[in-house]
C-alpha cells in the first residue's frame, strides 16, 4: 500500500532522515519505535505532505506522493494524527470533526461517519458542543483520532497517541486503534510506549538518529535483545 524508498529529509541544514525505507501493507498495523528525536515524527510529516523529502520516493497505492501538497495527500486517503493532538482548541468538538471531513462533500456519508466516531468515543458525543481546548488530554487525543477518521482514510498515521495519558486512557486508545483497524483502516503507528505498540502491531521498524536500524514482525522484535534493553526495559 505504502512504499517509502530511501528518503532524505532536512530541516534547513539539519538532516533528520537519512535514507529511510519502509513498507506498509493493506490492513496492517505497522509500528515505528525509536528514541526521542530519532525522526519518527519527521517521517510521518513527510508522508502527509507537511515536509518534502530531498531525495527518495514515496509510493502510495501505486502513485508517487512525495512532495505533493498536504491537501491532495489527504484527498488520496492518508490521514495524520499529529504529535501533541493539535485539536483546534477554540472550536467545538463537532466543528473539529467537521473539519476532519473538510475535503468531502458526501453529506450522508459524513453523517454516518460521525455516528461511527461517536460510537467509538461516546464521550465525544456527550461533549459535542464543548470547546475542544477544555477537554482533558485523553479526550483531546480521542478527538484527534475521531477527526482523522472523519476524513475516511485508507491509511491512518498516528504519532504517539498515548503520550501523557493516564494508564486507563492508554488502554482505551490502544483498544480503539485495534477497533479502527478492524473496520478496515491500515495504520502506521509511532510510539514511545514500545511495549504496548508491539503488542498490537503486526510488524515494526526501529529508527535511530534518522535511520532504520531494525525491522521485522512485532513478535520478532519483542524478542530482540537490543530492543528489550533500549525500549522495553524499565518495567
Amino acid at each position: 500500500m505504502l512504499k517509502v524508498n530511501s528518503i532524505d529529509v532536512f530541516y534547513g541544514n539539519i538532516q533528520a532522515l537519512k535514507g529511510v525505507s519502509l513498507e506498509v501493507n493493506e490492513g496492517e498495523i505497522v509500528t515505528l519505535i525509536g528514541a526521542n528525536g530519532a525522526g519518527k515524527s519527521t517521517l510521518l510529516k513527510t508522508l502527509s505532505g507537511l515536509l518534502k523529502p530531498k531525495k527518495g520516493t514515496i509510493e502510495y497505492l501505486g502513485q508517487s506522493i512525495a512532495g505533493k501538497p498536504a491537501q491532495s495527500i489527504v484527498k488520496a486517503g492518508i490521514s495524520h494524527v499529529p504529535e501533541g493532538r493539535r485539536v483546534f482548541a477554540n472550536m467545538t468538538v463537532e466543528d473539529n470533526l467537521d473539519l476532519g471531513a473538510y475535503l468531502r462533500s458526501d453529506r450522508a456519508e459524513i453523517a454516518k461517519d460521525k455516528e461511527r466516531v461517536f460510537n467509538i468515543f461516546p464521550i465525544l458525543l456527550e461533549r459535542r458542543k464543548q470547546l475542544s481546548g477544555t477537554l482533558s488530554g485523553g479526550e483531546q487525543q480521542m478527538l484527534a483520532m475521531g477527526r482523522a477518521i472523519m476524513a475516511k482514510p485508507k491509511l491512518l498515521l498516528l504519532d504517539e497517541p498515548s503520550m501523557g495519558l493516564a494508564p486507563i486512557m492508554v488502554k482505551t486508545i490502544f483498544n480503539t486503534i485495534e477497533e479502527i483497524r478492524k473496520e478496515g483502516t491500515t495504520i502506521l503507528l509511532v510510539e514511545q510506549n514500545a511495549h504496548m505498540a508491539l503488542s498490537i502491531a503486526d510488524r515494526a521498524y526501529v529508527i535511530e538518529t534518522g535511520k532504520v536500524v531494525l525491522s521485522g514482525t512485532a513478535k520478532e522484535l519483542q524478542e530482540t535483545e537490543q530492543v528489550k534493553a533500549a525500549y522495553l526495559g524499565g518495567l
Partner: protein
Amino acid sequence: MEWLQQLINGISLGSIYALIALGYTMVYGIIKLINFAHGDVFMIGAFIGFFAIARWGLGFFPALILAMVVCAILGVLIERIAYKRLRNATRIAALITAIGVSLLIEYTTIFFRGAQPEAYPDVIPNKSFHFLGAQISMQSIMILSVSIVLMIILQFIVHKTKIGKAMRAVSYDEEAARLMGINVDNTISITFAIGSALAGAAGVIFGIYYTKIDPLMGIIPGVKAFVAAVLGGIGIIPGAVAGGMVLGVVETVVSALGFSLWRDAAAFVILILILIFRPSGIFGKNTREKV
C-alpha cells in the same frame, strides 16, 4: 433633545469606525497580523469609487462593487507579495512590513496624483427626518445598517460556513489545518480578499458620507478602527462593531461637552481603561494562559 442628537451623531460616527474595523478584525482574527495597510486599502477603495462615479459615470452600486473587487485583488496581492513570506517570522517583522506597505501605497498614490484632496459627488440624496426633535440623516441610517448587516454576514461566514471553519482552523494551527486537507494559502487569500473588499466598501461609503478624500485619509480612520477593534476584542467580529460604537459615542460626548480638543485623548483614555479592566477588550475572552 441636544443629547439625543449627540447620541445619534455618535452612533453614525461609530458605524464608520465599525465598518473599517470589521476588515481589520477579520484579517487579524485569522493571521494575527496588525495589517496597517488596511487604512490605505480603504483609501484606494475611496478613490476607485470616486473615479467610477465622477469620471466614468457609474452609479453608486456599480461603483461600490468595483471598489470592492479592486480592493480584494489589491489585498490578495499585498498578502502574496509582502506578508506570505513572513508567516513564520516574528509578528513584529510582519508589523514593520505592514507599515512599509502602508507608506508605499500612500506615497505611490501621491506620486501619481498629488496630495490634494478630492470631493465626492453627491450620488445618494441626503434626506433627513426628525425624530423626537433630533435629526437623523438617511445616510447615517444606511451606514449603520450596512455595518450591522456586514457584521452578521461575516459572523455567519466565519462561524457557519465551511470556509469560515477553515479560516478559524488556520488561525489556530496552520499545520494541523493542512492535515485536514485545507489549502492554507487559499484560505488566507480569501480572508484578505474579504477583509480588503470590506475596506473598499468602507472607503466608498466614507467618501459619500464625508465628501472629502485624499491619499492620507486612511491613516487616522485606520488607527481609530484599530483602536475600535482592540476595544471590542481584536479578532472578534461583533467586537469590532461594539468597539466602533463605543469609540464613536465617546468621541462625540467629549466634543459635545466642549472638549473637542481632547477628543482623541479621551478615546485613548477609554481604550486604556477598558484594557486595564478587561485586558482582552469588551468581548474578548479573558483566557488565562493555561500552564
